[in-house]
């Protein structure tokens, strides 16, 4: 009787160990977007920024200092810009590759669509900086900080810092707002390997 009970207990133990191992794996798949505040960083950059959270879409990335866009874009276009930044910051780590030329050749259409990069040498520079900043395809974007925004003619030149957990990367891009026919368009184009000084 006792021996039979021991056998059953061992079976139960094996079952429990299997379930625990499986739950760890499931937890790693679900992304966690922690909204972190860092008082030291806010003091350093002097924006007094409050992380702006949007609840309408659970994939939207919080953008600190986004209110600086108000001087240049109306609310509708501001919302579009936020969407473009969400896509940009989400897609960027997926492009990490040890063969940037080959990767670009195979993915040039989407790299142009989501990152606004249309030249292999620009992509290679960005890719190199990602690897240097330890950003890879497993990186998940936590938040973005607007560092600077300046108008240059029709274009807006923006510098942002993207946070992927402990890793960060500063990126620069141009925002172009124009009419094509009767339709207004907002396009985001990377500035290659330009970093914010």
């Amino acid at each position: 009787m006792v021996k039979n009970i021991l056998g059953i207990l061992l079976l139960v133990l094996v079952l429990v160990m299997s379930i625990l191992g499986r739950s760890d794996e499931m937890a790693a798949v679900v992304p966690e977007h922690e909204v972190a505040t860092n008082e030291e960083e806010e003091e350093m950059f002097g924006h007094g920024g409050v992380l702006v959270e949007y609840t309408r879409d659970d994939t939207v990335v919080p953008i600190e200092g986004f209110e600086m866009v108000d001087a240049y874009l109306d609310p509708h276009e501001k919302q579009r810009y936020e969407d473009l930044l969400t896509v940009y910051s989400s897609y960027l780590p997926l492009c990490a590759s040890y063969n940037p030329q080959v990767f670009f050749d195979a993915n040039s259409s989407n790299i142009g669509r989501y990152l606004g990069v249309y030249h292999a040498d620009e992509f290679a520079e960005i890719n190199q900086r990602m690897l240097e900043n330890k950003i890879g395809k497993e990186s998940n974007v936590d938040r973005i900080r607007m560092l600077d925004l300046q108008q240059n003619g029709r274009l807006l030149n923006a510098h942002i810092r993207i946070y992927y957990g402990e890793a960060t990367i500063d990126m620069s891009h141009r925002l172009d707002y124009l009419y094509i026919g009767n339709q207004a368009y907002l396009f985001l184009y990377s500035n290659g390997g330009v970093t914010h000084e």
Partner: protein
Amino acid sequence: MNKSLRIPLVLILMFAFISLANRYLDKGENVSGEDADMSVSVNEISHDEIDVSEALFRVNDIDNYFFLKSLNYHLMSYFQGINQGDVDMELFESEYLEFMNLDENAILKRFSSLENIDYDVLSYERVDDAYIAHLHFRDIGKEPRYLMSISVRDGHVTDRPYLFIEDVKKVTGSPLFSINVKRKAVFLDYEIYEIQIQNKKDEELLVDSGMYGFYAIKGNNKYYHRLESEKLPYELAVGENRRMLIRFDVRNPEEIYVNIEGREIRIL
């Protein structure tokens, strides 16, 4: 324990430990497989993997949005170069630059009266493998607005509605001169002919410099010419062999004539 339970139990335990051991060994393995020192995982060649929601773009026609983004990239690059006074000549179609004998100065000269150009696209159309964008541009905040058409093809632009260049190779000769219609550059609604004229006389050769010094015929219409090459007098010096770029605002004219020393010479 029952002997009938013993073997199955041992097998289950072995399977469980092997599974768990494999799981923890996988975590420790370098994902990149090549450089054991790198701490990030990267993509091997992946083909158009999309892991973002295109719904975030909030446009009705996402494909058209992406196409226009690409088209505008080239327009934006062109005008950025103009505004900065630093044109990337590799942006242009090289064949067009060679035909028109254009360098950076010539391209910038067109906009010399403007400081900071802004543009909007009025419309665009596809012609063969080129996209022609019709736009108006101006100095930001100022009037007037100007119209122009830009051709974009395979990542290159021309600051005209350029389509292609093709050989003509039609030579007309006499003891006094030789006229070679070598090539023509075809644009959306006009053509520019590369014409080489050689003076074989012992004195000046007089080419009519009037509007109809060169003219084209199509149907019942007669089209005057415009000189697109360097503005030199139409008279050719002794022995001179001059390259001229002659424009007619018509596609595929049936005949082309030049008036030399009072005689109409058909050259095409």
